[in-house]
């Protein structure tokens, strides 16, 4: 079983993530945790020192973290975005599309389920943060 699923090649940081407020107060931290309800845009001025953003899903049905991840990627953030908390393997395809590239779920993933989920959809209808080409672009070259 997978406690952590990581889709990046670089070395993971071992610095523990701190809350957004603590992160903004400390000039030397590089790992930050975004709780549901945090305004992730407060982090944007400090993005150049961030290596890891953990985004917490307190419950399965709280989808705010999807927007938080996409906002970070839209702002040009290239570091790691890790989904933590109540993360269901069935959602990781859409999470990856929003810019998540690692997952540390409360309940470990079955590796086969994770592979199935990541490869489930052959195409996408919309642009997102993953660079996949949407169907309308494939249709029109």
């Amino acid at each position: 079983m997978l406690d952590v699923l990581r889709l990046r090649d670089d070395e993971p940081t071992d610095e523990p993530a701190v809350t957004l407020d603590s992160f903004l107060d400390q000039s030397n931290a590089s790992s930050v945790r975004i709780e549901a309800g945090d305004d992730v845009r407060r982090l944007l001025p400090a993005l150049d020192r961030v290596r890891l953003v953990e985004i917490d899903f307190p419950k399965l049905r709280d989808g705010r973290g999807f927007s938080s991840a996409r906002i970070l990627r839209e702002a040009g953030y290239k570091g790691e975005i890790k989904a933590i908390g109540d993360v269901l393997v069935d959602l990781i395809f859409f999470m990856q599309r929003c810019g998540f590239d690692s997952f540390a779920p409360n309940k470990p993933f079955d590796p086969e389920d994770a592979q199935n989920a990541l490869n489930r959809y052959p195409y996408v209808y919309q642009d997102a943060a993953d660079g996949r080409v949407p169907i309308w672009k494939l249709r029109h070259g």
Partner: protein
Amino acid sequence: MYRYDNYDQAMIDARVAEFRDQTRRRIEGKLTDDQFKPLRLKNGLYLQLHAYMLRVAIPYGTLNSRQMHKLADIARKYDRSYGHITTRQNIQYNWIKLEEAPDLLAELATVEMHGIQTSGESIRNVSADQYAGAAADEIMDPRPWAELIRQMTNFMPEFSYLPRKFKIAVIASDQDRTALRWHDAAVKIVRNAAGETGFEVYAGGGMGRTPFLSFRIRDFLPAGQFFSYLQAILRVWNMHARRDNIHKQRMKILVHELGEEEFRRQVEEEFLHFETLGEDFPQAEYDRIAAYFAPPPFETGLSEEIDRSDPDFALWVDRQTVAHKAPGYAIVNISLKPIGGIPGDISADQMDIVADLAERYSFDDLRATHAQNLVLPHVRKSDLYAVWKALDEAGLGAANLDTVTDIIACPGLDYCSLANARSIPVAEKISERFAGRETELGELKIKISGCINACGHHHAGHIGILGVDRKGTENYQLLLGGSGAEDASAAKITGPGFDEAGVVDALEKATDVYLAQRQEGERFLDTYRRIGMEPFKEAIYA
């Protein structure tokens, strides 16, 4: 109508495979019920009182005969040989077995249909004017935009778990047949002075326990920017909605709490940001889709004459047909409201008959309406008699569109696990009580919900009925003065509720007030708006 290409088909085939895998994992115990529930809801599968219910999307209410025949086959094979047309132009089956649901969805996929995002906290199946492409009063066919919105909103990654459901409607006429302003977001397609196509955009409507009509957030949005604008609306809501109380998470509540101006300001700011990302769907994609909705080859030189010598037929023509944009054609409304019947229910055999009629007489085009009826959009006037005969023989010949017996009702406590009271028996009793008085009472829209969730649109009824649970017994509140049309308004409650027989009596007293007080040409709603609630209350609670 639209046809899937290999991309669209691959997407729904993948969805079926995903759901088959999820169902297997649920049955094997790898997924808990709490984990499985949102996954099955996103595929239209509810757990009701007696069985699973599957809601099948009918995108913008448009079907062809092949699809309708498949819906009939499915009704026979997986259900009890009937289905129920819903207030979102969808169809639902009431007696589904979980282990058979993946096979059912696989069969649907063979006719380009699915249950994707027909329930759960997602962007629901987009609704549109059921007369699209036929209405004499439309500026263009709204369905190409509706199909484009389907592609924008299916599997939208950022909005995988919205705070609540989100409903979109599209129209292109001044007359509104979709309950536009009761949607979370809606567009009315318009042209500006320069002849450019754009949208009047509405946001923040919804029924449920706290009814709000939407407000116009944009007077004119260039149509090609809609994807950015929709993403902006959704992101503002997704980021800022409450998450602590499921009853306060619809977008209408956020709009109400922020105020229209502040909500608009935030959306416009987010929109400017999205516009920089270059994600809008191009004109070429609109053009590709629009080609599928080219008008059918209408014949010219057809007669406008209708032989009205059969009085039953003449009544049906007057009641059920509507002006068509092409000379010699009519729009035919098929009533799914036989006297004493269950509103919106249709048997598998009736589905097959209607499918055959659509193929033979209406360019293979069929529509579902939010009022739980069906439409043959393009029928030659010279064929109306044959169509009526066939419908009448099939038990589909009722002539009651928009009248007292054309009742909207949710499934209620006969099926629904959320309901507090039964809706269907109330609808049946009203239908039986008022049968034959349709002409006398004129346009009168009665809408019945079996709980506060308002699936039966009671807030939008000229007369609404809301079933509640009062100390363990079913109790029905009466509401007056709502509308889901272009003159939209929220109905107001008359006062204390009634038992089942009492609410039918109260409704009759309300119609008596109308008959006594109406002025020339007034509908029930017009009289109510002129004289107010008091005369009705006096009569009802005398």
